[in-house]
């Protein structure tokens, strides 16, 4: 008998993306550049985070016609973003048969109290997290993949490092706890006890964790892989740089060979200018994306 859209099938696609780079693209041409550079998936969106910051206004799901063109242009998985809590946008993206939905703080939240109930969907979801409790709450709602949030559209890696280090340190900490203390940890984390137990036992999140938000160079990618990311999302970092095709291939190479510093060196050479950056610490509070969602 056939079972479609089991959690294993949803989380399994994330397993297949591991060790890879998922790139933001705004049209079919960029999607092709990303695929030819070795991206393991593309994130289809109308504006990359750096432009969303610049333009202001409400950032919504992209025009399905534009996503469809990208689906036709490449054979690698195509992901797309829905607003936090906007289950109707998510249903539209599911009907479009995107391969993964990112319930993303980069778009303007539609619901300030609730995230999407993700378990009933056939399409899998990836969600951002800044700490372990947030990651496990999203998994509890049905997310099949987690990405550390970082601070999208800045080209500043500092928040991504903070979030990754926080999550991996918390995973290590709960691994030392006995059953009574795990119940207390679940309360403190605001996370389901069964997922806290599972994470503590396995010494890792129950799903694949990528890093996002601020990766601009091959060395950034190597850094976060060493800090426990199992792959990377690069948003504005590729197509807001001087030579996107070359930088895209270099980030892919550094992600594969992150343990070999000679290869990261080689990937880092002669790439031209990185994206125009913003220091995350100097952002006005209203400009901080990673505090969206709970």
């Amino acid at each position, binding site marked *: 008998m056939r079972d479609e859209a089991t959690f294993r099938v949803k989380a399994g696609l994330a397993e*297949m*993306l591991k060790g890879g780079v998922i790139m933001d693209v705004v049209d079919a041409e960029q999607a092709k550049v990303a695929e030819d550079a*070795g991206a393991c998936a593309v994130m289809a969106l109308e504006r990359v985070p750096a432009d969303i910051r610049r333009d202001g206004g409400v950032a919504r799901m992209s025009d399905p016609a534009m996503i469809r063109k990208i689906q036709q242009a490449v*054979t690698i998985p195509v992901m797309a973003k829905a607003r936090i809590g906007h289950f109707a946008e998510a249903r539209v993206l*599911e009907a479009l048969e995107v391969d993964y939905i990112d319930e993303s703080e980069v778009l303007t939240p539609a619901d300030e109290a609730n995230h999407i109930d993700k378990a009933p969907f056939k*399409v*899998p979801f990836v969600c951002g997290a800044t700490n372990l409790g947030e990651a496990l709450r999203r998994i509890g709602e049905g997310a099949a993949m987690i990405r550390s949030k970082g601070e999208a559209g800045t080209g500043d890696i500092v928040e991504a490092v903070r979030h990754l280090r926080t999550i991996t340190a918390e995973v290590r900490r709960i691994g030392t706890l006995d059953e009574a203390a795990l119940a207390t940890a679940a309360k403190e984390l605001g996370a389901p006890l069964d997922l806290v137990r599972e994470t503590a036992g396995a010494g890792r999140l129950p799903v694949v964790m990528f890093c996002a938000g601020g990766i601009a160079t091959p060395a950034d990618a190597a850094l976060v892989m060493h800090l426990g990311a199992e792959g990377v999302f690069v948003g504005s970092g590729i197509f807001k740089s001087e030579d996107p095709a070359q930088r895209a291939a270099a980030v892919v190479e550094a992600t594969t060979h992150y343990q070999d510093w000679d290869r990261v060196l080689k990937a880092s050479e002669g790439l031209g200018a990185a994206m125009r950056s913003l220091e995350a610490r100097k952002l006005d509070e209203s400009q901080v994306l990673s505090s969206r969602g709970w």
Partner: protein
Amino acid sequence: MSVAGEATPERAPRVGVLALQGGFEAHRRMLERLGADVRDVRVPEHLAGLGGLVVPGGESTTMMLGIEREGLAGPLRAFAAERPVFGTCAGLIVLDREHVGIMDVRAERNAFGRQTHSFEEDLDLDLGVGRDGGPVRAVFIRAPWIAEHGPGVEILASVAGHGVAAREGHALVVSFHPELSGETRLHERFLRDVRAAGGD
């Protein structure tokens, strides 16, 4: 699962998992559970001293670009002429006649459709591993099927009339993911082939 006692050999076979991108860690975990000494393979030199190689699932386009970048296609063909190779999902595509060319099959990519059509089901598969234990729980994720194959290829299982498992000599391919469902029998079979080929 009580597989360790049965599968642990006198001496652990040393096998590689192609680790350019994809589901290589799940294969590593399963092979280690079965008593193998597992190495990641990212460049041709990593193939030295290996008794067999797993080519995991992942994105075949990404993996083929990596194989090209690292100059791995020739070394992989030379390796497969001597040693057992086991490909899953994208690994089946990588090994087919239109890519690295280790097996005389042609894989149809994403043959079952996009991710929302991914599924799992029970498959009857003659594994020849000495204990039947019922059907294989097969997890298909944006999976390929075997659209064509040469006369030397034995199709081991099909879904809707399309081959999803095959062997040719000591190369074995499946379009699903035994490493994700805790299904150890295919990996056991691979390790048995590695030992039979004298590799460690």
